[in-house]
């Protein structure tokens, strides 16, 4: 007759100020790094912030955070642990370091389950690290989370931006708010992405230069917040 879980999702999220899904048209654009750094920056500013890794098959935010031993607490639902100042939720608590071979329907079910049983409590921001592209997670969040907003990450590559255009077209069609577009790993002076973003009627949030040192900051949030990327993400946090 009915899946009961979907009816409590918006209730679970009602004490959250803003819910921002960090997305991309394709993979490899640094979306998880931007999402994690954005969440850490908001927390550093004094905002109560949560980070939810919805990239179930390729999760990486726990590695960026260096979250090793945290586990959710069970109390009338699941209470995400505090990791580096963030309320942090990920499927890795349950899948460990193993491969999670999930098909679309399984991804949907796992996402609905976690949205239905996670008790976030009071937050100013919930940042969601999305899987790349227009898949089940994007469609489910649009369907189930009333106040969802999207922040889109791309690289300077025309290939990446072409996929962004498709994501933007879908979101605009469905009247889902888009916070803006971030150009990541920028290596040239080209204004192409900025111009195309403005052409789409969207806010160009920042251009983040390619930073070879970022790799050494993985797992060390203090180091991460001291990178060129973090300085640019700080600008984004002002605009969000």
């Amino acid at each position, binding site marked *: *007759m*009915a*899946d*009961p*879980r*979907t*009816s*409590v999702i918006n*209730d679970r999220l009602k004490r959250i100020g803003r819910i921002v899904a960090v997305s991309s048209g394709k993979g490899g654009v640094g979306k998880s790094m931007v999402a994690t750094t954005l969440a850490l920056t908001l927390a550093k500013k004094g905002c109560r912030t949560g980070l939810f890794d919805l990239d179930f098959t390729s999760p990486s935010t726990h590695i960026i955070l260096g979250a090793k031993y945290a586990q959710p607490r*069970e*109390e*009338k*639902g*699941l209470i995400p642990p505090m990791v580096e100042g963030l309320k942090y939720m990920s*499927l890795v*608590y*349950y*899948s*460990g370091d*193993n*491969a*999670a*071979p*999930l*098909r679309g329907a*399984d*991804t949907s*079910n*796992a996402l609905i*389950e*976690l949205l*239905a*049983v996670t*008790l976030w409590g009071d937050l100013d921001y919930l940042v969601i690290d999305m899987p790349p592209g227009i898949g089940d997670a994007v469609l489910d969040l649009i369907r189930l989370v009333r106040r969802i907003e999207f922040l889109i990450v791309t690289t300077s590559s025309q290939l990446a931006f072409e996929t962004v255009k498709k994501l933007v077209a879908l979101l605009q069609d469905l009247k889902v708010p888009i916070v803006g577009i971030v150009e990541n790993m920028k290596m040239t002076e080209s204004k192409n992405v900025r111009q195309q973003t403005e052409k789409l009627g969207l806010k160009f949030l920042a251009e983040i230069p390619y930073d070879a040192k970022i790799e050494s900051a993985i797992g060390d949030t203090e180091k991460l917040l001291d990178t060129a990327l973090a300085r640019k993400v700080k600008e984004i946090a002002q605009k969000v």
Partner: protein
Amino acid sequence: MHEWALAEAVIATATQIAEKEGLKQVTEVTVKIGELQQVEREIFRFALMQLKPASFKNVKFHITTAKTTLKCRVCGNTWLFKKNKLDKATAEAIHFVPEVAHVYIKCLKCGSPDFEIAEGRGVWLESIKGAK
């Protein structure tokens, strides 16, 4: 006590359906629980009783259990989920998010993790009855 969150979802959905159908008093709610999620029936029933609104005053909760059937997408083998074949940590992980079964369970015949949870996944609201 994660059963509590699932019970809240059942009550919220049953309330919405009752309102939609114009039921002033709900007398029966039938919930099906898939074995895969290993919901503790008594905790779940207790939570339902604690959470029920005034319009559910005389409600009877029927909780049925469905066996979990897994069907391999590669070789077509069908088998039943058995909790006692899992260690405690694995059983608990599947309890919280049943889809992580794909991480820990493989087809008994060909070893593939690419199987379908054909039946008996989690909590499902089967029916509600009441008076208008």
